[in-house]
């Protein structure tokens, strides 16, 4: 049912206390949509917004949630994952909440979903142009690695004063012959802004470059929205002679479906410390197992 039908239904059922379709009031949705548009117009730039408190904790996905709730409609199908899994506590709670405040279909299938809310992973199956990927972002400011003050980092972005973060990489290489940044690796978006892609593994970064779908990023606690429109140049920052390197899973495969070209979770089997590996993207793994 659409927004109006939803409200009628709530009133007819004489609920003493009911919410607007998708929980947020229309004015909030309007503000968030406007900020999304601004973010899409300036790829990689962090747009401030008046983030509302939600019934889940700050730091638990309120930013991503506000984005999802502002864009979903009755024609959408929703998928929510955390660490690549549909069954994680965080993902389940979010789905539970969303279903309570609007009845849109939920799916585990990446291909079926029109809106995917994710914490820290991009699904293995390629996304298409009718899909939107909403990222939950804990700390939107990539320059916090070198500077804690928002006032200063704001100026740095405005002036494209990024020498600090390049220096950080340089010093790592000189001292350890290896860059220390694991997940959430800084990327240059549209050749202008350096951006935090949220704590996704480096493995997922190449998927962002010229992605066919719209990528939206929401940081609820820090009150920022940013976006990467489809077919945008997104490049991890790297030196000509010290290239960006994704996580190394050579010689390893998923113990369930035998996949070797996916991001794997390391499982400690028992007290002896023996290791096995499983697909982080659980629904993709299931699909493969069913074939």
């Amino acid at each position, binding site marked *: 049912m659409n927004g109006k039908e939803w409200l009628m239904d709530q009133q007819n059922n004489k609920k003493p206390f009911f919410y607007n379709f998708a929980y947020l009031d229309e004015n909030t949705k309007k503000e968030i949509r406007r900020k999304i548009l601004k973010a899409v117009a300036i790829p990689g730039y962090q747009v401030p917004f008046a983030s509302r408190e939600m019934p889940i904790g700050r730091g638990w996905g309120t930013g991503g949630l506000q984005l999802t709730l502002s864009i979903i409609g009755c024609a959408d199908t929703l998928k929510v994952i955390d660490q690549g899994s549909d069954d994680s506590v965080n993902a389940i709670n979010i789905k539970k909440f969303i279903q309570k405040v609007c009845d849109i279909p939920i799916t585990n299938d990446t291909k079926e979903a029109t809106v995917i809310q994710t914490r820290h992973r991009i699904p293995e199956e390629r996304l298409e142009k009718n899909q939107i990927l909403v990222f939950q972002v804990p700390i939107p400011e990539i320059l916090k690695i070198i500077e804690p003050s928002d006032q200063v980092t704001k100026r740095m972005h405005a*002036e494209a004063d990024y020498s600090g973060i390049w220096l950080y990489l*340089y010093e790592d290489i000189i001292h350890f012959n290896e860059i220390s940044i694991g997940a959430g690796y800084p990327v240059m978006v549209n050749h202008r802004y350096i951006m935090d892609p949220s704590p996704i593994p480096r493995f997922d970064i190449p998927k962002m470059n010229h992605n066919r779908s719209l990528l939206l990023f929401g940081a609820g606690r820090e009150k920022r929205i940013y976006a990467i429109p489809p077919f945008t140049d997104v490049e991890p920052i790297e030196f000509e002679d010290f290239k960006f390197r994704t996580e190394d899973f050579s010689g390893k495969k998923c113990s369930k479906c035998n996949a070797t070209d996916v991001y794997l979770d390391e499982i400690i089997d028992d007290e002896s410390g023996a290791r096995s590996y499983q697909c982080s993207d659980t629904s993709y793994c299931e699909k493969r197992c069913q074939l």
Partner: protein
Amino acid sequence: MSTIKPLLSVRNLTKRFGKGCKDCESLTGPTENRNQCPTCRTILGCGDVSFDLYPNEILGIVGESGSGKTTLLRALHFDFPVTSGEMFFSYGKENNEFADLIKQIEDVNLFSATNYVKRQFRNFLTGIIYQNPLMGIHLNISAGGNIAEKMLMADWRNLKAIRERSKHLFLKTEMPLERIDQSPKNFSGGMQQRVQISKALASNPILLFLDEVTTGLDLSVQAGVLDLIRSIQREFHFSMIVISHDFGVIRLLTERCMVMKNGKVIEHGLTDQILEDPVHPYTQLLVSSQL
């Protein structure tokens, strides 16, 4: 016959610290013998300064403390916004690596440009050496890292090239190569100054600013630093603006100079001529008391 266009053209540069009032102009300056307006307490940093600087030319600015020479330098380096005035940059040398940027700023009054453009100008085209080396280098990163930072600011992205140039500059400024990865924390004042010099030169600037670079160093060290600067300039032909209260430094390094008092330029011309035959009584006083 074509005339050489000046590298830098400054017109009527004025910087006041304070609100300003109608009396400021008439009640401050060398004839009034004061920098501070008695009516509104606004301080004249420098007033109505105009000059041209040509490629491969070294201009000196001499005066005592409060003369406005440091304010002038800071204004040219965009350390703060000016009260009024214009600054133009032009560089016609063929095959120079900064052609795109220089074309962009041709005929643009740089004082009214965006902070983004100002930063590009500083990063790519200029270098600065401060009196206090701690203003120009970070103690929490290695000496080599400090030098690398300037190159990173000028978009150098090849580690080997960066590292090679750092080593090359270290040797050129007569520093021991084995200390390149140490922090400048424990370096002597003279060595810290050499790190600053290396840093300023690292990205092949066209314009170098020197702010009292030898003040505070031991006399023997001073001589060494001055010789170094002179020989490097002769090798690379960048233009320099040299600030000093010491006529000895001005005589050694510069061909033309301007004398400042209470924020205004009171005399300018060929350095040799001014030293031999100063016209303005204040210049006569300065010259006679020093040499």
